């Protein structure tokens, strides 16, 4: 009779788990990576469950993911073009290039905030790596962005075919940097919200302010003179990752106002890739330090 894998596993010396072992920062980081990797199947199930639920509770289901950014675009176009009478050529596409990544970011952040507190009962019943929860919501959020590519393709093909350029292939590169940043941000809000439920209320306003302080509705060039009149705001904008992201997305999707294709802000993007990885490491450490208290506080 051949020996099955189970039997081998049973023969192996039992693993020792001791509460006396308290890893340092490097140990915690290694632990987080091992946990996420060994539970990748769980992340996949959670992502699938999330997508299934989001699609099923409304009449139009996933069609909302396509309609939502379009409707938001219409709102901003009415506000800026009709009320404020600003004239930017092809403004709907101009603003759409910022709405897509921003919707992705905010929906990921909102989902991450409730990711840990929403699994309260489970956390008190089973020992599992809690870092899986914000990781799963952040991965599920990518679908939001991916679905947004459908209305983008539609807009480009139907109304702005002259603006279609090969630089569109750089979208995934910019999105990759944004993903790392979003993941770091998600870990922080998910962990802190366990202790302070205010995060959910604060974030709604903080995110809106963040959007207006980022060159989404306007281009960075349009506020050049702010550097002289209000240097503080200009400074804040310069260290804002969404300055880099919005400008880069807009360059590859919209191009210049005249319609010439242009490149992402490569230097800024590289800096934010490094910066986001550093933030991700710090956020992971923060989350792992808070994690042992979750079951007691929830």
């Amino acid at each position, binding site marked *: 009779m051949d020996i099955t894998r189970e039997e081998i596993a049973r023969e192996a010396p039992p693993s020792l788990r001791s509460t006396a072992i308290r890893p340092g920062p490097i140990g915690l980081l290694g632990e987080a990576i091992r946990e996420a990797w060994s539970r990748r199947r769980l992340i996949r199930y959670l992502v699938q469950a999330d997508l*299934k639920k989001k699609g099923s509770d409304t009449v139009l289901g996933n069609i909302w993911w396509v309609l939502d950014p379009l409707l938001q675009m219409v709102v901003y176009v009415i506000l800026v073009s009709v009320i404020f009478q600003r004239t930017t050529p092809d403004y709907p596409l101009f603003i759409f290039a910022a709405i897509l990544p921003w919707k992705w970011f905010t929906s990921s952040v909102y989902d991450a905030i409730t990711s840990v507190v929403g699994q309260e009962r489970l956390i008190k019943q089973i020992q599992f790596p809690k870092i899986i929860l914000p990781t799963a919501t952040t991965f599920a959020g990518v679908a939001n962005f991916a679905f947004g590519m459908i209305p983008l393709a539609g807009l480009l093909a139907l109304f702005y075919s002259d603006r279609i350029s090969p630089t569109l292939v750089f979208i995934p590169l910019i999105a990759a940097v944004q993903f790392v940043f979003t993941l770091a941000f998600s870990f922080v809000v998910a962990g802190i919200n366990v*202790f302070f439920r205010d995060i959910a209320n604060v974030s709604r306003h903080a995110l809106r302010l963040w959007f207006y302080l980022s060159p989404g509705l306007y281009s960075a060039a349009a506020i050049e003179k702010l550097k002289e009149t209000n240097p503080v705001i200009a400074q804040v904008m310069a260290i804002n990752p969404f300055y880099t992201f919005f400008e880069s997305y807009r360059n590859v999707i919209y191009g210049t106002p005249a319609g010439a294709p242009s490149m992402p802000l490569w230097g800024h993007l590289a800096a934010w890739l490094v910066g986001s990885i550093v933030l991700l490491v710090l956020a992971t450490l923060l989350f792992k330090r808070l994690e042992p208290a979750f079951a007691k506080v929830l």
Partner: protein
Amino acid sequence: MVEGVSPGPVQPGAPTVIEVRDLGVRYSLRLTRKNTVRQSFANLLRRRDGPSSFWALRNISFTLTKGESLAIIGPNGAGKSTLLQALAGIITPSEGQIDVRGQISSLLTLGAGFDAELTGRDNILLAGAFMGMDHREMARRIDSIIEFADLGQFIDASIKTYSTGMRARLGFSIATAIDPDILLLDEVLATGDQVFRAKSQARVLELVRAAKGIVLVTHDMNWVTEFCNRAILLEQGHIVAEGDPAEVVAIHREHSEQVKALKAAEAARVLAAAR
């Protein structure tokens, strides 16, 4: 009741699977559920009055050797569930140390983590993944889980359509589908109708015989004296008695009688004062 499966005496020199030394679990009263920034500030200002924390468990030391079945009994709020949570690794000790050798599985409240929007089948896979089971292993066991839970075609309907009994049945059959080295049970013996209860008791006994060690929390004293070879009596976070199940159960009965008598006297006094 399922009869005649009383565990034999543990062989001398059997290896230790759980070792608990001077375990203490402290809960902070400042940082509790649904805290907001406002409350935290208020707590900071009120720092001096009232205790800021309490010990749910203190000075707990015991060992579990291979093949043992240990019962933890005691009144409500004694810290029994907290002890199981600490053993399962769900909460970390504030002081002392817990060493566990082998894979541990906890059957605490059943069906806690179900996602009401998903089908029974999806929930089985999700629960398995949460418990850290290999997905191939889970795929192999899913049919027997479904069969044991006896849900019929409901298995492909979302959990929100299930009755409480159906949920409990599914929870029980998922939780017992794995064969861990060490099993932690919290009051899982009284679920469902009579038939399912008998079925589940038989399953637990099967696990008891197969597992290397069991720790269970229960109010069913017959179970303790019949199927456990050691018992611990917890009161207010401390071990007050440990040893032979029959003796510990007797002490527990005696203490509960005393508490009952005290409460009756107290109630009589309150009534007398009201009159």
